[in-house]
């Protein structure tokens, strides 16, 4: 009688959706707003969730994608917290996030979306393919290329590292 509730355990879902949104539009209040909007819509349409069509996170990311697309192009992709003072023990983490965020923000829309889905929302290439309505193989190739372009933004150290295609396609 009671159907499977896609939002039964919301915390990990919130983190994954936020990471995806933040990779797309930049870390900060905009990402929080879009995440809230996504969950608001999910609560409203939770009855429409069909477990046969995929996992709850894929369903939520679909909603998040529509929310982002509905908002139009975002102006600022870098973190809003970039100039805020941070405690010293968090320095390395913060620098890492800022650097990754800036590098991802420099990519084009399509590459950014793939990186956000793969490394922000932690989806597999197959799940991304299902979500975007593409073939898994095509997504693997596109991800590989997006990573290549991202490496270029990091300089020669990044270029020397071998490309881990298998991990990208996991």
């Amino acid at each position, binding site marked *: 009688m009671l159907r499977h509730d896609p939002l039964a355990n919301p915390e990990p879902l919130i983190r994954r959706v936020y990471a995806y949104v*933040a990779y797309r539009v930049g870390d900060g209040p905009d990402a929080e707003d879009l*995440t809230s909007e996504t969950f608001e819509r999910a609560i409203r349409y939770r009855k429409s969730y069909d477990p046969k069509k995929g996992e709850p996170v894929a369903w939520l990311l679909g909603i998040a994608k529509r929310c982002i697309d509905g908002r139009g192009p975002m102006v600022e992709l870098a973190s809003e917290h970039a100039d805020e003072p941070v405690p010293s023990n968090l320095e390395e983490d913060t620098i890492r996030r800022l650097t990754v965020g800036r590098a991802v923000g420099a990519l084009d829309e399509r590459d950014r979306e793939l990186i956000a889905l793969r490394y922000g929302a932690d989806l597999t290439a197959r799940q991304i393919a299902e979500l975007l309505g593409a073939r898994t193989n095509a997504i693997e190739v596109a991800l590989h290329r997006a990573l290549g372009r991202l490496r270029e933004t990091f300089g020669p150290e990044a270029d020397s590292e071998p490309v881990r295609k298998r991990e990208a396609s996991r």
Partner: protein
Amino acid sequence: MRYWRRRHEFDLEAELRAGRPEPSPDFVRRLDAEVRESGRTRVGGTLRVALVGALTAVMLMALAGVGGVGYAASAGRDAAVSVKRVVTPREVVRVLKKSPAIDQYAKKPKKKVKKVKKAKKGKGAKGKVRARTRPPFTG
């Protein structure tokens, strides 16, 4: 980018995972509470509907045990017949049609005159001609 240059080993995918944006704990807590609250309301509503359904089923079963369902069905059927009798005027019309006045003065329906088909000319004539041309039977 200096941060990256300082590092000896570079694993872009690991860095992308480690450096993925994290929401503030306060935001997570607030949204989590909101989502859980909405779920609780929904489950409460569903449970109420389920409880009402179960109670109805139990009552029906208890009534069926003492023949209450059959009694209710026949009462319903009687009510339907009564309503039908009141609503449909068919019986009254039938009585009026059978009154003596109508028997005596009512317009009688016209008798239908059957059309008689005329015999075709050609066929018979042809037969006669053939009989005439045939030689007489001599035994």
